């Protein structure tokens, strides 16, 4: 976030805006604000979404074990246990 703000208030852009008429200046600063929001909001909202999960119960939804699948209810499976749950975009990926 700091990087983004610094980028849009860099010395060269400040110098450019100083010599502009007021209406244009406000347009430029609105544009800068919008750009900053466009970049920052998705990051903040996903961080909020993730942190909102902390303290909540895992959903009682089934994962599939093996095939044909044995249904594993996530809430039942994690009850009374300490579990690390990792989600990955695809199987057979290196990381």
């Amino acid at each position, binding site marked *: *976030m700091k*990087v*983004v703000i610094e980028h849009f208030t860099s010395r060269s852009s400040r110098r450019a805006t100083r010599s502009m008429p007021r209406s244009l200046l406000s347009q430029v600063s609105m544009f800068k604000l919008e750009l900053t929001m466009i*970049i*920052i909001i998705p*990051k903040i909202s*996903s961080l909020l*979404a*993730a*942190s909102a*999960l*902390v*303290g*909540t*119960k*895992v*959903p009682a*939804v*089934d*994962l*599939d*074990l*093996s*095939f*044909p*699948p*044995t249904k*594993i209810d*996530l*809430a039942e*499976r*994690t*009850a*009374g*246990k*300490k*579990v*690390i*749950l*990792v*989600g*990955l*975009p*695809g*199987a*057979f*990926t*290196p*990381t």
Partner: protein
Amino acid sequence: MPGYKEKAEAFKSLGIDEIIVYCVNDGAVMDAWAESQGVAGDKMLTLMGDPSGAVTRALGMTLDHPGPMGVLGYPRCKRFAMFIDDGVIKLVKVSEAGPAGQEDPAGDDYPEATLAPAIYDEVKKMLGKDEL
């Protein structure tokens, strides 16, 4: 995933009972991946599938960015790791952007926050605090 295999014993010594790794793939695919990684039937690390994406949606972890979708074909799940204690989510990390906001929706380029070493350190800290 290989990192969690390597760290499985270390997690166990922290008091972790189980590590579950899942993808929006069917159980047969996950079994085949477990075979290829030498973790089929492992007591500590289990690979599971979420073929309908139901678990992913319930957790709000759907990955439907057009970039990864262009390669993977359908909505998957974000690269995340959670620590769950007695059914309650205690820690969530998601890899979906670089440290300076670089675009990386699937966490391919900047996966560090959700990899085993980082999660191990976080959980160790949390459990240390709880017990002291």
